[in-house]
C-alpha cells in the first residue's frame, strides 16, 4: 500500500510534449513560423536579408517593454504609462546629451528617471491602494507632458559630444550583422526568463498574481514586490527609449504614442493572462514578433494599411480563444 502511495506521489502527470501542446505560446510560435513560410513564397521581398533585419529590429522596442510589462501583468496589474515613460526617458537622454554631457551621464539620468517613475507608480499602487489602471493612466499623461516640458516640445536630433556613440549603440550591428537592439532584446529576455523561473522574487510574483491574499498570509513581502515590478516595467521602457533614440537619431514628443496597447497586446498574445498569475519572457517576444510579422506582411502583400488594426485585434482574440477552448475542455 505504501509503495503505491509513493508511486502516485512520484508520478509526473505532464510530459514535456503535453505541456508544450497545451501552451498558448507554442501555438503562437507555430503561427509566426507558418506566416513567415507563407510570406517567403507569396512575396519576393519578405525573405530578403534587409527585410528580415528590419523586422527583427522593429520587434525589439515593443518586445523589450513587453518583457517589463510581463512582470506587472503576472502580478495581476497593468502599466499604461510605458509609452509615455519611454518618450520621457528618450527626452531626458536627448536633452542631457544635447546640453554637452557624456553618454554615460545621459544614460544614468535616463535610468534614474525611469526608476523614480516606476517607484512612484508602485508606491501609489502598493502602499496607497490605488488601482493600477488609474495610477498608470495618470502617469501616461504626466510623463508625456514632462517630456514636452523638458524639450519645450521641439525635436532633438543633436546629442552633443557623444552623438556618434549613441547612434552606434542603437543603430549599429556589432555581432554577426545582427542589429544591436536585437542583441539587447535577447539578453534582456534571458535575464527576464531566469528571474521568473529561478529566483524567489520570480516565484513570489507568480504567487501574488495567483492569490495576493495567500501571498500576504504566507509572509511574501507583497508591497515591496509590487513596487519592484512597476520599477522594472518603467526601467524596461527607459532602456527601450535609450535604444530607440540611438536608432532613430532624433526624439520627438510623439515617440511611443499608443505603444502601451501594442505592448499589452504582445504580452497577451504571447500567453500572459491579464487576470494575473501567468506569463513568460519568451511569450512576450513571440507576441511582439507576431504583431510585427502581421504589420510587415500587410505592407508586402499590398493590403491597405488601414486594415492593420483589424488583423492585430483579430490575432489578440484568436490567441486568447485558444486558451479559452483549452480551459473549457478542462472544466468538462
Amino acid at each position, binding site marked *: 500500500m*505504501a509503495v503505491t502511495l509513493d508511486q*502516485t506521489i512520484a508520478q509526473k502527470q505532464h510530459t514535456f510534449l503535453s505541456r508544450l501542446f497545451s501552451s498558448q505560446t507554442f501555438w503562437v510560435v507555430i503561427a509566426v513560423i507558418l506566416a513567415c513560410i507563407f510570406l517567403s513564397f507569396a512575396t519576393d521581398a519578405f525573405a530578403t536579408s534587409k527585410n528580415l533585419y528590419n523586422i527583427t529590429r522593429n520587434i525589439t522596442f515593443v518586445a523589450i517593454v513587453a518583457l517589463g510589462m510581463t512582470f506587472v501583468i503576472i502580478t495581476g496589474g497593468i502599466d499604461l504609462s510605458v509609452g509615455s515613460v519611454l518618450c520621457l526617458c528618450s527626452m531626458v537622454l536627448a536633452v542631457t546629451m544635447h546640453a554637452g554631457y557624456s553618454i554615460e551621464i545621459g544614460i544614468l539620468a535616463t535610468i534614474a528617471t525611469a526608476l523614480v517613475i516606476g517607484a512612484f507608480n508602485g508606491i501609489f499602487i502598493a502602499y496607497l491602494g490605488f488601482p493600477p489602471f488609474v495610477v498608470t493612466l495618470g502617469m501616461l499623461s504626466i510623463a508625456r507632458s514632462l517630456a514636452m516640458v523638458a524639450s519645450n516640445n521641439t525635436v532633438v536630433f543633436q546629442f552633443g559630444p557623444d552623438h556618434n556613440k549613441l547612434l552606434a549603440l542603437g543603430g549599429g550591428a556589432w555581432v554577426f550583422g545582427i542589429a544591436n537592439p536585437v542583441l539587447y532584446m535577447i539578453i534582456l529576455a534571458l535575464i527576464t526568463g531566469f528571474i521568473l523561473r529561478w529566483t524567489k522574487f520570480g516565484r513570489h510574483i507568480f504567487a501574488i498574481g495567483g492569490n495576493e491574499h495567500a501571498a500576504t498570509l504566507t509572509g511574501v513581502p507583497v508591497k515591496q514586490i509590487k513596487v519592484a515590478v512597476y520599477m522594472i516595467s518603467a526601467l524596461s521602457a527607459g532602456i527601450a527609449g535609450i535604444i530607440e533614440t540611438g536608432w532613430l537619431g532624433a526624439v520627438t514628443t510623439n515617440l511611443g504614442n499608443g505603444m502601451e496597447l501594442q505592448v499589452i497586446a504582445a504580452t497577451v498574445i504571447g500567453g500572459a493572462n491579464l487576470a494575473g498569475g501567468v506569463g513568460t519572457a519568451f511569450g512576450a517576444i513571440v507576441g511582439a514578433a507576431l504583431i510585427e510579422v502581421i504589420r510587415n506582411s500587410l505592407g508586402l502583400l499590398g493590403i491597405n494599411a488601414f486594415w492593420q488594426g483589424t488583423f492585430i485585434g483579430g490575432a489578440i482574440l484568436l490567441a486568447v480563444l485558444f486558451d479559452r477552448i483549452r480551459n473549457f475542455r478542462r472544466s468538462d
Partner: protein
Amino acid sequence: MAVLELTNISKHFGAIQAVNDVSLSIEPGQVVGLMGDNGAGKSTLVKMIAGNFRPSHGTMRMDDKELILHKPVEARQHGIEIVHQDLALCNNLTAAANVYLGRELRRGVGPFRILDYAAMYKRAGQIFAELKSETRPRDLVKQMSGGQRQAVAIARTMLSQAKIVLMDEPTAAISVRQVAEVLNLIRHLRDQGIAVVLISHRMPDVFDVADRVIVMRRGRKVADKAIASSSPEEVTGLITGAIEQVA
C-alpha cells in the same frame, strides 16, 4: 506541561468586547475543538494566538516563557502554524510551490542563489506520503480536490518543527469523503506530538477527532472539558445559551 497557556486574555475593539477574560491551556499531542456561534470570539482568540491581534489584557505563555507576538511571522517562528479557512493557496502554482511559499529552498552562494526545485519536490512528496495523501508535488493546485488542497495547506505546517497547529474550519466546504481524509490528517499531526486547535461548526467532526472541547459564547469561555464527558446535546446547549455554563 502545557505547550501554550493563556491567562485572563481579553480583547476589545473600541466598545466591543470580542474576547472577555479567557484562560486556557493546551497540551502537546492534544486535539482541542474550539466551538461557538458566529461572533462568539473564536476567530479573535485564534488571531491573537496567530499574531494578527495583540491582546488588550492578559498574558500568553509558551513552554513557560512569556509569548508576545507583533505579527504573524513571529508566531510561525515560535512554532505556531495556521491553516486558514480559505487555505491561502495559489491556484497557478504547483503543490510543492504552495507548500514552500514564503520559505522557498534555494541553492548556490551569495546573490546567485536559485530555487532548488528538486529538493522542494522531494521534501513535499515526503510530507504528502507522511500524511498518507495522494497528492503529487508537481501538480497545479488548480486541478486538486478539496482533500488534496487541505493536504497542501497542512503540509506547510510540517515544514518546520510546529508545536501548535491552528485550523480554521478545515471541513466547512468539502465533501463527506474528504472530511474523513482531513480528520485523518489531523490525527497524523497529533500522533507526532503536535497540539491541534480545531475551530469548527461541525459537531460530528469535533466529537470524532478532538480530545477536548472548548465552547465560547459572547466572548467568554463557557465550557472546557474532555470530549468523553460531554455530549453533542450539551455542547449545542452551551453554544446557544440554553445551558449557561459548565465547570
